[in-house]
């Protein structure tokens, strides 16, 4: 029953994600400081943050669908998980894989690259697919040990494929083809709605919707759980004393520094194994607490995909990239350590302010949004 509810809720969220920005609820958060109408070139006091020229892809120029749930860069190839198939951009052309090619479902929610083999794993609303040399093999809850067909997250580490589903977490051992399921019966997972996963040889983290952040230590085989010290109270009583909220939507683990970045619908968190640091709109440059995706670069830097734009944090300053929430015109703002917000003159922005996925291609960035896929081409600093 829980699974059915989870699927229903997931469907609702996906439908919401695909709704036009104007229909989405807005928070009352405003910039702490009034913006200054100047560019970084004109005002050396404004921190230098990466500037991009965004090229946007929609159905008008080859995408199979404008709802892009996730994006994955594999060298010169870019994979986009859309609401109507898995698209790959290569040699300036899009090719789309559909259920007719064996894809588990038309809605592709998550992607992961096996860097050793070049295989791409796609989590969909109807199972998990492996795309290998053009062949698609599909694993479902009926034909395999996968716990549930709604696959929100996937991550590949060595011989293991880690999967976050609407009915718990799974691991597929590619060597033995055996599945291990992780749920309320064998982990501290209270809710089994696993929403994201980040796996490394040392640790695997699961973002669990309503059950905080789960950590699996690969060496000891032990599970640990990080929860909001405020419980399910949506008021932040103990900031920086733990995870910001129980409803965790995305996780990104940087093994080199033992840093965990976690996104929730009520703010974001960074954990270094000892200290927590939380990010809220009221005291950071985060454009919205409602964060769909997070991608850590290192211990200090991370990208945030929110319902009100794409944000970058360099450890001190923030940059936000989006179509203006009021005019729809391209917008980039920079917030410095003192909270001063400066608007930077730009002519392009991500295709939509509802950001669902981020990946990097050298110094460029690819952004999955609710209405198109964006390629951010880094511009030289002025």
């Amino acid at each position: 029953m829980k699974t059915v509810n989870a699927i229903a809720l997931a469907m609702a969220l996906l439908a919401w994600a695909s709704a036009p920005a104007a229909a989405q609820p807005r928070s009352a958060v405003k910039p702490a400081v009034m913006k200054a109408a100047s560019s970084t070139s004109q005002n050396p006091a404004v921190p230098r943050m990466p500037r991009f020229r965004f090229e946007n892809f929609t159905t008008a120029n080859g995408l199979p669908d404008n709802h892009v749930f996730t994006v994955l860069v594999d060298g010169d190839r870019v994979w986009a998980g859309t609401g109507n198939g898995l698209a790959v951009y290569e040699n300036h052309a899009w090719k789309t894989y559909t259920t007719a090619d064996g894809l588990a479902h038309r809605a592709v929610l998550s992607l992961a690259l096996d860097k050793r083999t070049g295989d791409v794993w796609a989590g969909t609303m109807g199972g998990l697919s492996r795309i290998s040399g053009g062949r698609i093999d599909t694993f479902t809850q009926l034909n395999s040990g996968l716990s549930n067909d709604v696959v929100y997250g996937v991550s590949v580490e060595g011989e293991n494929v880690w999967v976050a589903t609407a009915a718990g977490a799974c691991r597929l051992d590619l060597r033995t083809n055996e599945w291990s399921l992780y749920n309320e019966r064998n982990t501290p997972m209270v809710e089994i709605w696993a929403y994201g996963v980040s796996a490394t040889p040392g640790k695997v983290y699961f973002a669990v919707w309503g059950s905080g952040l789960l950590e699996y230590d690969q060496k000891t085989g032990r599970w640990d759980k990080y929860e909001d010290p405020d419980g399910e109270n949506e008021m932040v009583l103990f900031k920086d004393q733990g995870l910001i909220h129980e409803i965790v939507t995305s996780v990104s683990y940087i093994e080199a520094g033992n840093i965990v970045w976690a996104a929730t619908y009520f703010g974001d968190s960074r954990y270094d194994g000892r200290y927590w640091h939380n990010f809220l709109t009221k005291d950071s440059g985060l454009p919205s607490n409602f964060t769909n995706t997070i991608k850590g670069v290192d211990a200090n830097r991370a990208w945030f995909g929110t319902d009100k734009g794409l944000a970058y944090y360099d450890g001190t300053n923030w940059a936000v990239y989006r179509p203006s929430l009021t005019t729809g015109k391209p917008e980039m703002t920079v917030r410095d350590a003192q909270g001063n917000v400066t608007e930077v003159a730009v002519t392009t922005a991500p295709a939509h302010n509802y950001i669902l996925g981020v990946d990097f291609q050298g110094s460029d960035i690819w952004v999955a949004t609710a209405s198109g896929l964006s390629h951010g081409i880094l511009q030289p600093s002025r």
Partner: protein
Amino acid sequence: MRQRGRNPARARTAAMLGAVALALASAMQWQAGPARAATGTGRAPEVLTYASPVELLFSRDGKQLYVLCQGSDEVRVLDANTYRPIRNIPVGHVPRGFSLSPDGARLFVANSWDDTLSVIDTASLGVAATWPVGFEPSSVAEDRTGTHLFVANRISNEVAVLNALTGAEEKRLACGRGASYMTPSPDGSRLYVTHVYPNPARQPTPGGNRVPPHSEITVIDTARAVVVDRMPLDRIAHAFHTALSPDGRLGATAGLHPRNLVPLAHLEHGGAFADTITLFGADVGKPVELPLDELERYASRPFGVAIAPDKSRIYVTCEGSESLVVIDVAHALRFIRTHNGPYVQDLSASAHYVAARVGVGHDPRGVTFTRDGRLLLVANRLDDTISAIDTRTNKIVKAIELAGPKQLSVLRHGEQTFYTSRYSFQGQIGCANCHIDSTFDGLTWDLEPDGFGRDIVDNRLIEDVKDTEPYKWNGGNPNLPTECGPRTEKYFWRSENYDDLTLTDLVTYIRSLPSRPNRWRPHGELAPAQERGKALFERATDKFGKPIPEGNRCSYCHSGPKGTSQKSFDVGTKKPTDNPGPLDTPQLVNVALTAPYLHDGSARSLEEIWTIFNPEDKHGRTNDLTKDELNDLIVYLRTR
């Protein structure tokens, strides 16, 4: 529980069969073909160790011939001029493939039954190292730079990438089901990998998985060690060796193209299989499948392929027809250009491009040219001979006999009978057509002459099949002599060719087939999840504490060491197209390998048996299980 050899009736039957075999043995002289040397004047009742050569290679300097002997677990080294033995090098169990390093200093041998790689130092002709590898390694190739070794693992459907210096495995690349044979491109930049079982059906179909089989040639970039392409082999279920021309512009792959979607009763109307070669490469354009069969001259089960250095001829060994087919390349290319395909159904096509059909020994396998290209050598696995064929005349000029028993044992004769196609109508098929290397084929068949699409049956594994009677899914055949004799002759061979002695030997061979080692239970003990699954398999009460009726417990029907009570039951899986009656309980020996499942192959995986095809709990009480528990049950089944 049934104990082997303690059933008096069965013991009497076995004794009588043995007596008949021995009594007739002295009167029997096997009629050998032109290159058959390893035959004696009678059949030896004891188990003899034959060499059973399967692959051939010349050393880089051309002075030595390496012969991979699957029966004696050796590489035999012969003088390349005189063919006299130089040394026998023991390797692992049931070696299936071998290759030389680019510099010729190392000879790698894939030992398929003990999951190892033997590394032979070609200077000292000794085994320098034995490396553990994946499940059922079947061929091996080193890249040009000596960085990586690639090993095709049949059971795990992958090519493993190893460090060429240490043997340490770095990764595995997903290939076709039953990945077995690899061929490097002439420049070494690509590996072409074939597989012997068809890839699984992508989507379930309403009437079971009645879709044409599909295979592929997996193309690996050796420098990056990744899969870069998959050439489709549509409607081919079993693909074997590939050869490439020295200029890399022409490739040829031997394949079996079953006609399993129509009743097999149509054997006399053109065959149950097309025996084909698929040509690909720049000389051909889009890959083209060409039939090798001709009316009354079938090229049953093509296996080994070689392309002449001047690209004028393609040579294909055909296991069942015990022949070498010689293809004129220019004629074949002209045929492709001037005729519209597909050609597979056309029994007159091969007359356009087959230049010769040369009879060789029993179960011919690997082929190789002498350095000057004048001779082509063919390894006759079930004769312990090598046929040397003059490539100018297409005549056998020498039969090279390998050392070993000269008597034909009962088992050897049975195995020859199993692999030959001579007993079927026009020599079209043999037992090994559907039991690839004495296993199974991963296909479902429409066997009976009861109309299209009626009584579809999955083909079952025959490893360790002894003492699992009755046979057939409806349990209609009480013993192997009936199954392999009248039934096979009537419905498969469409002929009545076996004499009693031959049938006895065939049955003796099939009864002797062991099971391959179970890879999911390597040391005998069960892992925790397997233990939990075993408890579910054996449980007598469900999760609600209710007793499970005896006939609804896994362990009741699938009892005994082979997992069959040898009784028939209705487990709720029959379809409207099935004939009435209960179904025989299949044995569980190596059940992990034998997808698809159920009597008609409608379950593509073990999971689907219960997630889709057991809605009323008639195939065991399973609907009370969580997904975790079902997974446990399945990991236990894999250990059987």
